[in-house]
């Protein structure tokens, strides 16, 4: 597809290597900065995962990228077009899947798709809608009202809707929230197939397993982008040391309360029948947990921190900074 291709500024958007390139974006609502000094680059053909707790500014950032919100500070381009002044151009090339289902509930599947086809000026909206219905596996449901579809089908329809005009960039805002595991898996297979065709995908999510399916991830908390890179890079950069403790059910809860707040222990998180105990300073952590390691009813193992451990740690650190 599009290999290295040193593009001049404001070149046609389908050359060039970097699809999203924004610097120092800040967005305030009622004087409160919801996104602060955010810079990011996304290369063509990558699946870029956007992670962060609720209210951290993911949706706001995505909206700034597609021209639905105007940044208060900062500049940038999306598909080579200025996100402040050329939003009309951006909109023709971007497929945006909103966090909340936002197709017309009182239109049928087919009517929704045809509507979108007409707005984007497809030559034959009816045929395009028919093809999309087939591709999405929605055959037999095309007459059903969109509002009556179940969560998984709604999500498929929404994905079909935003890919219908064959955009260059997909912005997917928590596309798999509330969707069952099988549908999620199919959804991700779809995303990878699209990316292999050269489509760039920015996807926000809460699910760690989904983060691991992205080429690159970025973590945002309290409006600030804290870390970005490949999953391996993000885990390595966290400098976390993690121990996994296994024990009987009754014991773990008490242990968790004991360990929380001990010097060197920055984080204690239950995972089923085990407990993840992590610290930023390996030496301090060893010292902190030493008395417990001798207990016979506990089984301690040193482990690689999970992405979730890293994110929870990042968040609590950001929280400390924020206060």
């Amino acid at each position: 597809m599009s290999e290295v291709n040193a593009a001049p500024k404001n070149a046609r958007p389908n050359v060039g290597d970097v699809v999203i390139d924004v610097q120092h974006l800040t967005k305030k609502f009622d004087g409160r900065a919801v996104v602060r000094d955010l810079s990011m680059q996304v290369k063509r053909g990558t699946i870029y995962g956007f992670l962060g707790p609720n209210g951290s500014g993911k949706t706001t950032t995505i909206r700034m990228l597609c021209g639905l919100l105007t940044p208060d500070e900062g500049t940038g381009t999306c598909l080579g077009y200025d996100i402040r002044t050329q939003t009309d151009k951006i909109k023709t090339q971007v497929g945006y899947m909103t966090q909340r289902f936002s197709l017309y509930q009182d239109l049928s599947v087919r009517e929704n798709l045809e509507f979108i086809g007409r707005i984007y000026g497809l030559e034959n909206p009816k045929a395009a809608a028919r093809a999309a219905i087939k591709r999405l596996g929605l055959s037999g449901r095309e007459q059903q009202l969109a509002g009556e579809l179940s969560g998984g089908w709604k999500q498929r329809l929404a994905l079909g809707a935003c890919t219908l005009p064959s955009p260059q960039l997909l912005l997917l805002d928590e596309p798999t929230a509330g969707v069952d595991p099988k549908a999620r898996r199919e959804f991700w297979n779809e995303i990878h197939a699209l990316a292999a065709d050269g489509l760039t995908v920015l996807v926000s999510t809460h699910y760690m397993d989904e983060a691991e399916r992205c080429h690159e991830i970025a973590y945002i908390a309290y409006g600030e982008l804290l870390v970005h890179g490949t999953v391996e890079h993000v885990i390595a950069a966290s400098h976390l040391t993690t121990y996994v403790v296994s024990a009987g059910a009754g014991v773990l809860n008490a242990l968790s309360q004991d360990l929380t707040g001990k010097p060197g222990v920055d984080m204690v998180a239950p995972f089923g029948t085990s407990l993840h105990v992590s610290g930023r300073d390996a030496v301090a952590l060893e010292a902190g947990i030493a008395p417990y390691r001798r207990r016979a009813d506990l089984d301690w193992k040193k482990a690689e921190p999970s992405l979730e451990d890293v994110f929870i740690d990042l968040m609590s650190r950001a929280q400390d900074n924020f206060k």
Partner: protein
Amino acid sequence: MSHIIPSEAPRRRRGNGFWRKTWAVLIKEFIQLQRDRVSFGMIVMIPLMQLLLFGYAINTTPRNLPTAVLLQERSDVGRSILAALANTGYFRVTELPSTEAELDRLLASGKVLFGVEIPANFERSLRRGEVPSMLVIADATDPVAAGSALGALNRVVQTALVHDYAIPDAGAPAFEIRTHARYNPAGKTELNIVPGLVGTILTMTMLIFTALSVTREIERGTMENLLAMPITPIEIMLGKIFPYVVVGFVQAAMIIGVGILLFNVPVLGSLFVLAGLSTLFIATNLSIGYTFSTVAQNQLQAMQMSIMFFLPNILLSGFMFPFAGMPVWAQWVGEMLPLTHYLRIVRSIMLKGATLSDLHCDAAAMAGLMLVAMTIAVSRFRRTLD
């Protein structure tokens, strides 16, 4: 993280707690009402507006009605009669046409409600004791408006000649006033009301159709999707208005059809012109409704704005009460309302057989209002979610 559930559970009161729960809902409703500033404003504005309009602007025995006087001779007696007309308080001479054709046109276009004609040689006939007659033509499309004024004409005969112009006092009235009710000689109120209803019904239905269109998209969350697509505010507006123009047209045809069939309302003028100007009126109201929709925060507000707009339309347009009888300020407000112009148009075409050239002012006013509404709507339309 782990302290969501309190360690010590709060105690609950005993009993069913009917009033307590009612109280809880009541408090919630009050808080929500307070938050919704516009609704709160409406609670004050709607009754106040109704009271003021009913109290000050509406006059069921209208005075100072616009009158055109055609003087075929210039004489002191003529002037004295005009003064007596004005003294009744019902007539206000606004036009002095010089030909009968001009007088007819003034009546047909609705510029004046009365035409007074004092024939040539009037004074000479008086002096000879011949009891000459003058003609008063009333536009009786609105029988209520014309009625009381015509009733006051007797007084004119008695008071006009109190000053002595050396006219022989024969004991009997010195001259005679012939009245002629034009357009609705039988004084049937339904002839006036049915065309008025066409406009009123259209106003209400058209406003509601579009007033909800943008707020509905916002409330259902579909606006975010729509705004993310390559479409301009003008395209959205026209796309939302056009279907209802067709709906409104069908509705107008239905009301007029029923009026003709059941109430025997005539259509003296051209149906084609009526259809064209009705379409313009429909589009104007749709644009105004759409404008509300772009200004309102939610559907309730949009509905309330429509009602706020509908009230003066009913009260100040000449639908319920004679337009000419309203104070000047109220007439100015009335001129800003599309229904005022449409009522003139629809009544003139149906009852007077008026043509487009009689009505071009009202048509232009409606078109102007439509453009103003559309301009506001497009400029108010928020293209982002900021």
